[in-house]
């Protein structure tokens, strides 16, 4: 887990990135890296849920396939808790099947990106999600 904390923490919005692949975390982190966000990383589902509870982020970027708790499970936990009503979730997945996308959206994800994705697309989605 890496936390990059800019100076003015209070005004920043926290984003949690959860992916078991370090290269993917690095890519996502590098893509959305800016002075506007405080980025927190998690390497599996359980850690992701712990980070979400601890940092109460504005946005969670969830990989669907992770050891421990899957991204979909973490998503359901977030959506089941009314105090996270304002928390936005973007799912990242290597699964290309439409059924997976549907189940992700039904579970309450705001956006859904299929690997490989364009970092620029990701950035757009992040900004859109945070403006919702």
């Amino acid at each position, binding site marked *: 887990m890496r936390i990059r904390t800019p100076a003015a923490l209070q005004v920043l919005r926290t984003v949690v990135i959860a992916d*078991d*692949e*370090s*290269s*993917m975390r*690095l*890519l996502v982190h*590098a*893509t959305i890296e800016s002075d506007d966000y405080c980025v927190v990383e998690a*390497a*599996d589902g*359980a*850690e992701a849920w712990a980070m979400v509870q601890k940092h109460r982020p504005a946005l969670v970027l969830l990989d669907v396939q992770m*050891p*421990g708790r899957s991204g979909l499970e973490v998503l359901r936990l977030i959506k089941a808790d009314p105090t996270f009503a304002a928390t936005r979730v973007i799912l990242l997945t*290597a*699964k*290309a*099947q439409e059924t997976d996308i549907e189940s992700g959206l039904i579970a309450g994800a705001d956006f859904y990106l*299929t*690997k*490989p*994705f*364009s*970092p*620029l697309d990701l950035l757009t989605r992040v900004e859109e999600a945070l403006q919702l």
Partner: protein
Amino acid sequence: MALEHDGRERRGRPARQAWSLRNYMSLFMVVLLGVAGLAAFAVRSLAEMDARHSAGEDVSFASQRAAQQLQAGFDQIAAVSGPLASDPSMAIVFADPSKCHFGYAPIGAFATGHIDLVRFDGSVVCSSPKSPDTTSPTYEGQAWLVTPQPVVVAPIKDPVTGNQVVVVSYPVPGHGALAWFLDLAPIGPKLASEFGSGVHQLEFLVTSGDGRTVVSRSIDPARWIGRNVSGFVSGSAPASQPDLNGTQRIYGRSTFDPVGWRVYVGADEAAALSVADQLSNRSLAIIVVGVGLMLLVTSIVYRRIAEPVRRLSLVMRGSTAGDAVKAVGTTGATEVTNLARDFDRLMATVKHELADRLTREQKALVSERNYRLLFESHPQAMWLYDVHTLRFLKVNDAAIDRYGYSREEFLAMTIKDIRPPQDLPKFLELIATPQPQLDKTGPWRHRLKDGSTVQVLITSHSTTFDEHEARLVLAEDLTESQQLELELQQSQARVEANAELSKAKDEMVSMVSHEMRTPLASIVGFAELLVTRKVTPDQRAEYLGVMLQEGRRLTALINDFLDLRRIEGGQLTMRFAPADIKALIKRGVALIADPEGVPIQLRVPSNMPLVRIDGDSIFRVVANLLSNARKYSPDGGEIVVGAAVVADMVEVYVQDQGLGIPADALSHVFRRFFRVDNPDRIGIKGTGLGLAICKNIVEAHGGTIGVESDGLGKGARFHFTLPLARETARTGDVLVVEDDSGFAHLLQAELTGLGLSSTWAADAETAERLMMRKIARAVVLDLLLPGLQGEAFLDRLRIEHGAGIPVVVVTQKDLDPAESLVLYKAGVTAILRKGPGMAETAARMIAKSLTAESQAAELATG
């Protein structure tokens, strides 16, 4: 006594006769009567003894008392008379009789008598009863008159009274005597009256000191006093003897004799014994009553038990019809009645069961007949065969009609005989595997007696027939429509199989595409970032590093995947050759070992037999397992790789002390893309195909692969088995030492074309082991070998086997002249550079050198 002897029940045992209850009871009664008789006799004897004893005691006592009384009487007389006689006043009395006043009072037993003063001349001075005639010499001449001492004389007839008396005389000096005349007759009765005659009817008898003269007797004294009885003698101990009248008496005698008399007392023996009789009679009466009661009880017991039991047994034996309870009646004891009731109940149950069984057996009989009919007259061919011998046990008529064999011919054959020979292997394979209880197979071809074949469907099921494990077979002729249906089924099965295959392929594709997306996402994503953003040099380096790493990962994934497909599809050609597993494992260790980490322990005995493997593939397995062991030991635990002969295989194992595998994942680790789902291994990357490839390779060798782990954090032990190279394998004419299996294969083909046999060794270590076993006539040697190099092998070959073996070197190595020179010096026939056509050239050179060698040998021998 009627003894019942049941020989059937006691068969084979020493005869021990069983008695009926009646006999036991008779015996009991006899014993009872015997005991009663003995008791009566004993009582009687005891009573008699007792009576005698009691009579004896009585007489002893009575005689003693009687003697004492007599003595006391005499003593009293003496006490009075002595002083009186010697008194001086006596002279006055003698002088004047009128002064005499005597009176007689009874003294003890002496009831009557009188006292007289008598002068020497026998005349009486004075007398107690009356005043006598003092002048007549009444007692003249009596001896007791002139005695100087007091005397007692008896018996004497008193001249005055005429009674038999005892005279007790005391001399009165100078005058005469003082005489007591005591009547004898009353003494006996007086004594007797004192004791009473009692039950013993005592007789008192006093005799003179010699026992000859009766002094007095209690019975009939008048008759007996003074009578001479010639020697009535009896000791002091009581004894039985006849009395004076001849009556039997038990006599006792006093221990002393008063004034010299004997005192006897006799008890009537008959009277004494009659008491004993009475006593014993009473006892006898009690015994008789007792015996009577016992007999009564016995007869009741007999009536209540023995008789009902007898009746019950009659009913049980069936000689009397009817209910046991009724037969026993109300007179039986409770136990017997209960027994009878139980018996009735048992009989009722037995009857019921019997009836049931009869019904069942009848039903079974009927059903068996039905089934036999079903078998015999079934329109389709049926038979039973023994599953062990495969012989026909029974055939039905339809089978005989259809197949043309007679029943005898059938029973002499096995079921193999009705199959066409070409179908036999398939058939034997089918029956070699355990057949299900009910099986439907076919179509099969069966041969008829006329040589033609028919297509049949077989329905069979396991059964038991005449103690044979058998199968009942129904052979149905395949009709045209059935044939069509069958073909349809088969084509459907093919379609299904194809569908399954394509489904599996789809899954595979989906899985692979998924696995590829992650590295691709990194590569594409970072590439886009590099293209669209301004990045610092550090970031650029980092991004490019990730892209390279992910790109390599993608390549490995694709390679592994393709390899797996090739191995699974059988497209990867395995070239099996004998190999030294130790050398192979050593190379694996050298490849994987981390020079800075914990060294990998090698535990392979040097005398391991050669294994028959595709060296490249097995090397890959070993390397993969070793690399996994390193990867999953992030903290650098010890890794051990070893090999051992287990049964007829060689087992290779790789053991680590790393992260381990949870029990529920053990069976899945060889599945494609399976990853143990645990956070402790998040950073560890792999294609997810390595173990699946290993499994395929090992199984292609006829071996098995497995894994054990005690759980997370406890390490894991992977192991696989490999077949041994047959020891009898021929080394052949030529040994090909070549690590490139393709080129080795080509060379072997060329050598075969020239009529030369060959063996391939993929490394120099294996080649050495093969040469040790059997020496090849020539060697084709590659120099660039894994492990031991070609030059070193050549040196050792020359040392071990001399210079006679032709060696052709075929190598890709660029040799400088000095190196070539060294090789030629070592006796290399030729050095060829690997390339197209070189296999053929090398083969021909080997053939040529061998021909020259054999010619030289012929010359030498010729």
